[in-house]
């Protein structure tokens, strides 16, 4: 409990009749990067809005940095930094003014403010843009400035809601580097994302959230391991028969049926198991039409636990899920 900088117990949130957050409990340890991974509309932003005091607490217990969210919201506000999902920069203020304004809102003394502005502009590499109006910044620069702003008051926890939404790959990688830096310097990070790779890259722990509920939590490798070492995709002349045959192998952890083929989850290095699988099927009189071998990704983890793809993630060829929402 002492090392838990965020402690959430049975949190619920209703928009009218609609339950947007359904009995969520989790903890984040000091110094961690913790992610909520889920599709748009899963309830991630609602949780962040409640934790950052933008929405009122309805049901449950939350403490952040040792302060109770319900009874000491001001203390919570002082302890956190936020990077919002949409851009929230005044177009007609300069980079320096944006940071100054933020520092003033938190009653930072002038000298501390100025020193921090210098420090942060160096961190996010915007020193040259100090007196540029934010309307003249590129999308990536704006995002970096927002991250700097979130860090202005040296918060104990930095909340980031979809920090790389709508950015190109190069910019995203750059932002990930900053996030890693910030975390290494000791700031706890709470991240929401619907990008699998982002959660995978940055997080110490991930909770997969869907329909307002936490489906599963764990370290990225734990979640991936649940699927086995490798995934082998097969299209054959008789998929169900092929499944039956392969189930008898010790190193096969499980089999999932797809529209046109099957995915075989295996416990050992698939590169060496594949020949054996193909032999077995051939002996069983099954013709193999297509084969693919890959390491499980966070996408597969999500599909595995929710029974469906991320609603807005690009469907990977041959891996479409036919049945919807089997749940877990």
């Amino acid at each position, binding site marked *: 409990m002492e090392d838990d900088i965020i402690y959430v117990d049975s949190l619920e949130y209703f928009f009218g009749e609609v339950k947007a957050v359904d009995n969520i409990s989790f903890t984040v340890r000091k110094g961690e990067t913790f992610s909520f991974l889920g599709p748009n509309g899963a309830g991630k932003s609602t949780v962040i809005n409640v934790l950052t005091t933008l929405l009122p607490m309805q049901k449950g217990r939350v403490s952040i940095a040792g302060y109770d969210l319900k009874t000491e919201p001001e203390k919570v506000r002082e302890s956190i930094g936020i990077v919002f999902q949409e851009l929230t920069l005044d177009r007609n203020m300069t980079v320096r003014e944006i940071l100054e304004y933020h520092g003033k*809102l938190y009653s930072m003394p002038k000298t501390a403010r100025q020193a921090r502005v210098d420090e942060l502009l160096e961190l996010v590499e915007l020193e040259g843009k100090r007196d540029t109006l934010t309307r003249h910044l590129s999308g990536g620069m704006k995002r970096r400035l927002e991250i700097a702003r979130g860090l202005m008051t040296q918060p104990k926890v930095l909340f980031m809601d979809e920090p790389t939404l709508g950015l190109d790959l190069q910019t995203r990688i750059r932002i990930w580097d900053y996030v890693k830096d910030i975390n290494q310097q000791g700031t706890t990070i709470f991240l929401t994302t619907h990008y699998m790779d982002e959660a995978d890259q940055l997080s110490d722990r991930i909770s997969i959230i869907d329909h307002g509920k936490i489906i599963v939590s764990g370290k990225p490798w734990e979640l991936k391991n649940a699927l086995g070492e490798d995934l082998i995709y097969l299209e054959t002349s008789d998929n169900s028969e092929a499944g039956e045959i392969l189930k008898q192998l010790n190193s096969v952890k499980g089999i999932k049926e797809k529209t046109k083929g099957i995915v075989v989850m295996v416990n050992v290095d698939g590169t060496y198991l594949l020949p054996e699988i193909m032999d077995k099927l051939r002996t069983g009189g099954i013709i193999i039409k297509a084969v693919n071998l890959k390491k499980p990704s966070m996408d597969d983890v999500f599909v595995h636990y929710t029974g469906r793809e991320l609603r807005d993630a690009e469907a990977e060829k041959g891996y479409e899920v036919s049945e919807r929402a089997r749940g877990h």
Partner: protein
Amino acid sequence: MHTGFLTIYWRDMLRFVRFRALLFATLIQPALWLAFFGIAMSNNFDRLTATLPATPGVRTVGYLTFIGAGVIAMTTLFTSLLGGTVLLFDKNWGLMRETLASPLPRIHIILGIGLSGMVKSFVQSAVIMIFGLLLGVQFFEGYTQIQVIVSLFGIMLFIGIFSLGFLFLSVAIAITMESPEGMQAVITLLTMPFFFASNALYPVNSFPPLLRALSAVNPLNHLISVIRYFTIGSDFSSIGIHYTYTQGDVFVSFLALVAFTGIMFLIARWRLSKVTVT
């Protein structure tokens, strides 16, 4: 004392000075009122009232001087009612989330917007007065230097209270409305009764009883009377009507404006406490 409202004030002034076009228009527009409407109407009114017998022993002032006070008050009304608009945009564009998620008490948002709006009104009033004096408005005639300074302080005090009242109202509207078009419509609707049931451009003495009653509680009317008291004097006649203001009248106006502003503050605080921006 928490000085958070100065942060809100700082940002609003920054934007005010930065929007050159807005700044320019804000300063020029009231002067144009005086230049065009004032001079055009002044010739008409002076011609119509030339035949009326002047009250003996009472100073008579021209129409331009009469509406000089009206234009100052009217400009303060319009500027103040629009002063909260920034909050509507902040709310719609998500900029307000930063402020609402900060430890700044919400009341400081109201105070900060109030302060910056008040300063804008002071600047505008000064521009109108200077421009008016150049056009021939007979303000402060026969005043000693001390009297002019006292009068200016008096005007600032009343303009300050009045503008705060309408700025708070503007904040309440801005924070409640969803769209700028809606806000524009509400404000236009509001300005009509305030403006036309006032003695800004013409005397209220010949209004029908209902309109007179309305004008008696109209904050704009109180402000205009007080500005006339400070700029022209306690006893004068214009457009054929004899005006007298006593110190008692000024005090009543003071109480009326303070009450109005106090109520508006409570409404703004209530509206702002209800708002959630996500």
